[in-house]
């Protein structure tokens, strides 16, 4: 019961309170780039969720089974980025084989997941928070993906309506998106006191 509690708390914390996009500024590039349409945003979120779960788990395993306690620790970042690039390649091949239409609508964004800072960021945070059990690492990685999907979908919904609004000429595009994101983070700060 106790472990379940910890896992649940961890999940809620990474989705709402420590949301990677709103509090850690990770994954801002796709957040600004893909959030124009809600269906694209959702697909992107799903792909990121899959990659982040896979690479979060794998990097935890590599870190704990191979790297920690050996001089090889200096190669940590190189290992992490290789794992992520491999996982993205896997997703790309899978999507191309089984969902060709989805593959075409993604275009360049699929390989770009490699350089999505949310994924490497999460692997580094798992390392930094000293998570020492596999289950917790898996739940945290999955929660991070869900949190990212949620953030990007909320933003896409707002931006679809923003197209109809009368925005000053010089603020059109990226500036107004950033300001909207700022107001959203303000809303998410309301969750801050929820745990501990």
């Amino acid at each position, binding site marked *: 019961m106790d472990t379940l509690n910890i896992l649940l708390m961890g999940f809620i914390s990474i989705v709402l309170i420590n949301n990677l996009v*709103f*509090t*850690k*500024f*990770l*994954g*801002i*590039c796709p957040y*600004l780039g893909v959030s124009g349409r809600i269906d694209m945003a959702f697909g992107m979120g799903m792909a990121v969720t899959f990659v982040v779960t896979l690479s979060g788990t794998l990097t935890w395993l590599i870190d704990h089974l191979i790297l920690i306690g050996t001089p090889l620790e*200096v*190669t*940590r*970042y*190189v290992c992490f*980025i*290789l794992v992520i*690039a491999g996982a993205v390649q896997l997703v790309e091949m899978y999507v191309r084989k089984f969902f060709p239409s989805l593959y075409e609508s993604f275009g360049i964004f699929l*390989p770009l997941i*490699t*350089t*999505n*800072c949310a994924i*490497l*960021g999460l692997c*580094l*945070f798992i390392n*930094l928070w000293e998570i020492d059990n596999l289950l917790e690492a898996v739940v945290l990685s999955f929660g991070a993906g869900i949190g990212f999907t949620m953030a990007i979908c909320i933003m896409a919904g707002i931006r679809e309506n923003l197209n109809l609004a009368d925005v*000053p*000429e*010089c*603020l059109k595009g*990226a*500036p*107004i*998106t*950033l*300001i909207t*994101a*700022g*107001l959203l*983070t*303000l809303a998410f*700060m309301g969750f801050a006191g929820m745990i501990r």
Partner: protein
Amino acid sequence: MANKTSNAPLLGETFVVGLWRENPVFRLLLGMCPTLAVTAAVKPAFTMGLCVIFVLLCSNIIVSLMRNLLKPHLRILMFTLTISTFVTIADLFLRAFQPRMSEILGPYVPLIIVNCIIICRAEACASKNPLLVSIIDALGMGAGFTLTLCVLAAIREILSTGAIWEITILPAGFVPWAAMRMPVGAFITLGLLLGLVNLATKRKA
């Protein structure tokens, strides 16, 4: 260095382009994550800028040297490996000589690996140009990035603590805006700055 004087105007232009006309943050919207994350104060922002200049310079040099050996489908992987090697060096250096800064910047130093500016310069400039042009380009882009970070950080630090570079400059009656230190301040300041830049360039054109 005879080479440098013969086409100096061209090289000078490459440097200046990175500062304003193709400023990575304001004009190309690259490298947003560190821009927002480390600009709560000027000191970490400046340190971050120096790290990015170092990594950008080294990776541009290496990529430019091996540009004739690159295979098209493997090039991104080679770029990433080169970059992550230099980021590891920068991270170890900071941890050894600037432990306080290393603690403040935390995971954002290793996150330079996925900073789009560096991979973009490797792809767009260093893999096509000779060594000297790549070096100047790296310095220009890096300086442009550092300058932007410092401007953003200065605005946020003055408004959130009334100080700049940890030296108080505003009178004691100033009430600090706590919000500027939080994520909200980062997003909104950058949004308004981008709007200002758009306004300024429209006027000129």
